[in-house]
């Protein structure tokens, strides 16, 4: 071996040694997140993003919170069974549009090749994305509520939050409770909803459940979001004397509706929503105190820490980082990441097929995840443990009023007339 050859060999050996740590370093697990970062609900998308990043930092070990507790991912330093592989989030903006969402899902899957994806918050967008992820066989986690999503036999779609039926159920329990326990009377149930998947599905679910209880739905008013004037919708509800109003709206239409309610002096005894406009901080900025007294199905509240102490620790850390409490959107995205991390850990692989199999067998207890009641999927991949509560907006904050064991305050019933506010 001449001097030159030995030098070349030594160089190769050195490069090899330098590269060695890189080779033993486990590969990042890429997760695609499709959410509305711009468009008609940017506030909600932002909350989802904060939640997903918070959970990812916790799992990657970049954020120390609730170490030593039973919370899944607390104290981890990457995915344990994958040699500490870190999660890497790649975000895509659906703009709240089904077409954009579908194109973005396709782009994410073909370019960054994620092990799993999640999104897209708007039910209408998730409906558009579902066939794409099914075609590429990528496990997809969602919190969209449209019941139909899980009725179509998709193998790769998993819903962690409540579906429209689970979310609607709590309304009837609440109505039952308030008339029996508090002697409150109400007359007519009516619905006002935007006409995409979220609104239509929830309204159908409410109608079905009302029928099963022999409660007539006196009036159903669907509307399309792109309009400047909602006078006739509100006049219709007012003249029909609807005093229990079930409303599904996104932010901008939700703002116009609440302003029109004040203008036309329409104050039903109860406004119940499945979230949406009243999860978005922008709604509160726009209508101020007029946001008060609306009720919504709620999945989370920091005050639940009295029954689940870990929530307070996590919420305190979240508040320290972002200056606000965890809300329904951030909590569900924290949980989505936890569920995927758990599946990755059990699958011992970042392969999509293996993750899908592991997801099917998910069985997370209430104390392991942030979402209140735990996660376990049925044959259709709905979370059988998902349950909702009722919160009423008081002092611009959602406060749990039902069920009594979780309640922090008493409900204001009926909603006070506009001229007294």
């Amino acid at each position: 071996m001449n001097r030159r050859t030995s030098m070349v060999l030594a160089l190769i050996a050195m490069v090899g040694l330098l590269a060695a740590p890189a080779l033993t370093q486990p590969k990042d697990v890429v997760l695609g997140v499709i959410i509305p970062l711009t468009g008609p609900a940017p506030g909600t998308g932002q909350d989802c993003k904060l939640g997903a990043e918070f959970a990812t930092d916790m799992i990657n070990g970049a954020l120390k919170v609730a170490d030593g507790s039973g919370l899944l991912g607390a104290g981890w330093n990457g995915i344990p069974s994958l040699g500490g592989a870190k999660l890497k989030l790649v975000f895509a903006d659906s703009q709240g549009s089904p077409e954009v969402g579908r194109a973005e899902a396709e782009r994410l899957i073909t370019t960054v090749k994620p092990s799993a994806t999640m999104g897209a918050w708007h039910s209408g967008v998730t409906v558009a994305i579902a066939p794409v992820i099914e075609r590429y066989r990528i496990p997809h986690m969602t919190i969209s509520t449209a019941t139909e999503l899980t009725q179509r036999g998709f193998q790769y779609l998993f819903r962690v939050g409540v579906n429209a039926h689970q979310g609607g159920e709590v309304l009837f329990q609440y109505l039952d409770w308030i008339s029996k326990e508090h002697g409150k009377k109400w007359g007519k149930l009516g619905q006002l909803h935007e006409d995409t998947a979220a609104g239509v599905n929830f309204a159908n679910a409410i109608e079905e459940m009302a029928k099963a209880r022999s409660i007539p739905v006196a009036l159903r008013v669907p509307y399309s979001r792109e309009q400047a004037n909602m006078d006739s919708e509100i006049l219709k509800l007012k003249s029909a004397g609807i005093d229990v109003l079930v409303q599904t709206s996104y932010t901008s239409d939700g703002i116009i509706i609440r302003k029109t309610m004040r203008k036309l002096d329409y104050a039903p005894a109860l406004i119940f929503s499945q979230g949406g406009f009243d999860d978005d901080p922008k709604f509160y900025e726009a209508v101020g105190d007029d946001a008060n007294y609306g009720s919504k199905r709620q999945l989370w509240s920091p005050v639940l820490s009295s029954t689940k102490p870990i929530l307070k620790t996590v919420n305190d850390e979240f508040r320290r980082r972002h200056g606000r409490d965890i809300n329904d959107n951030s909590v569900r995205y924290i949980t989505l990441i936890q569920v995927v991390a758990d599946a990755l850990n059990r699958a011992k692989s970042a392969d999509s097929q293996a993750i899908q199999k592991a997801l099917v067998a998910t069985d997370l207890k209430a104390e392991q995840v942030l979402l209140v009641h735990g996660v376990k999927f049925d044959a259709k991949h709905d979370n059988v443990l998902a349950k909702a509560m009722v919160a009423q907006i008081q002092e611009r904050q959602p406060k749990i009023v039902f069920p009594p064991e979780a309640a922090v305050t008493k409900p204001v019933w009926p909603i006070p007339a506009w001229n007294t506010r």
Partner: protein
Amino acid sequence: MFGGVIGLVAVGVSLIWGIMDLINFAYGEYLMWAMYLTFFLWATLGLEPILSAPINAVVLFVAGVVTYRFVIRAVLRGPIFAQMLSTFGLLVLLRYVAWLLFRPDDRQAQSVLATSVLTVGGLRVSGGELVAFAGSLLATSVLFAFLKCTKTGKALRALAQDREAAVALGIDADRLYALAWGLSTAAAGVAGGLVSSFMYVNPLVGDVFLLPAFAAVALGGFGNVYGAVGGGLVIGVVNVTGGTLTVPKVKLALVYLVFLGVLFLRPKGLWGR
């Protein structure tokens, strides 16, 4: 109340239609840009949205004149399809530049007026809508007075009636066309300031106003500026009362049904000649 604003938007569309025989498809986009101007004036200087209407009028007037000089003048000699396509091209350009700059987010200026509610003879209206309605009527009245009483206004009307005769009599068509564009887009500017107290703005918001405005223009009589206001009011009334008396979901369908009915009975529109 809604009809008043549609009327003002319709007047702007009708002005160009009447004088130049040209449909400005991009009109809604001028309105959208005016709404963004209002929003940013509010966001940076805290200016009450309604008060930005005159500022919008000036800025949009200049924008209209510039559009005429650099885009429309060149295609006026071309076939009618080229003219229509050029305004359609403007629509795409203005919309997607806004999309690029402002993202598709809904934004809304906060207005003191919008939250106040007044009861007028048993009818409840929001302060914002009332001012928007009054402002629309004022702006259209000023425009009418200008068209009716000033020499330039008369020249504009002469141009609308018979271009060749007007030019033969020494009217400078080019300068007046530029003025017509400026006035038309200035109306969009005023409307943008007026609606911003109760309406959010996003890059697609022009469509919400433009379609009813087109119907108002046709309803009132093609190119008839006065008819456009009447058309706008009819549409506003049908929109709200029709939706309330039947099913709100069909209110826009009702508007177009009335529109088709009028065209069937009076093809030149209600006030068409």
